[in-house]
């Protein structure tokens, strides 16, 4: 799945999964159709935003205004939609994610002094996989000890966890839609193990 392509570099941004993705239906696809739909989200802008300890409390609100997205103050939650989303990463730390457009970093940097907010571009450092479907939680259950039950991990929740032995951020976009962020270098391995785990449910790669 390709997202936002206004950037002139778009054609050259090559996902870590470019060489491995095979589209189609695989595994034990039942009459009800595949249990899972899996795709890569690429290219995205993924920006880590941190505020200084000594920050002016206004700063965050102003950035929030500028970007038109709230920064969740509750641990393990997210805000926004596919167009622009913010995830809680840790104390005073968030991730802003959006389909690659104009340089988000520049946008913020021009308005705010670098001693108040710290931006780290991680757009290329993460591979993002979207997992969707009735068996999505079952697959997550294979990889991590977080309680994936709807009651504890619903829409707009996110966790940073060890998923199939990799550091991963999982964002619950909707009841059965999850965005998974993992380090780019492991993308191929992650992709393989994810598909392997999904085989018994049947899956479709889009």
């Amino acid at each position: 799945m390709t997202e936002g392509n206004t950037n002139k570099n778009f054609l050259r941004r090559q996902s870590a999964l470019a060489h491995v993705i095979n589209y189609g239906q695989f595994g034990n696809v039942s009459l009800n159709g595949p249990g899972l739909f899996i795709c890569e989200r690429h290219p995205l802008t993924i920006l880590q935003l941190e505020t200084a300890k000594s920050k002016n409390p206004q700063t965050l609100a102003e950035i929030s205004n500028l970007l038109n997205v709230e920064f969740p103050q509750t641990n393990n939650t997210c805000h926004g939609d596919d167009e622009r989303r913010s995830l809680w990463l840790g104390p005073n730390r968030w991730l802003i994610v959006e389909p690659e457009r104009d340089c988000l970093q520049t946008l913020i940097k021009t308005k705010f002094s670098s001693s108040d907010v710290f931006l780290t571009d991680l757009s290329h450092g993460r591979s993002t996989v979207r997992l969707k479907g009735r068996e999505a939680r079952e697959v997550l259950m294979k990889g991590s000890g977080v309680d994936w039950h709807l009651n504890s991990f619903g829409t707009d929740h996110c966790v940073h966890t060890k998923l199939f032995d990799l550091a991963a951020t999982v964002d619950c976009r909707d009841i059965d839609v999850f965005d998974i962020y993992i380090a780019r270098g492991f993308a191929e391995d992650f992709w393989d193990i994810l598909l392997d785990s999904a085989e018994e449910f049947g899956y479709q790669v889009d």
Partner: protein
Amino acid sequence: MLIINCPLCGPRDHAEFTYIGDATKNRPKSDDISNDDAWYDYVYLRDNPKGLHEELWQHSFGCRCFVKVVRNTVTHQIIATGMPKEDLILDEKGFERSV
């Protein structure tokens, strides 16, 4: 599995954490004129109690914060968790088992 309640992320498997060790060690201040014994103590000596142990873990697969954990080294029961500089209140009830 030890389930450690990260003060920020909630209960997680200890496999998400990296064990650091004794949380009671205070790094000698730089302006103490180099006191060899204090440094030796800081770097090498451990209380190693049989019973409650205050220890640090890093939630390296989660929020990356260092977390202070009070744990019984005999039963592995975790009594309390908090941030490194937090004074943890050890609720005696932590020892009792509610049904």
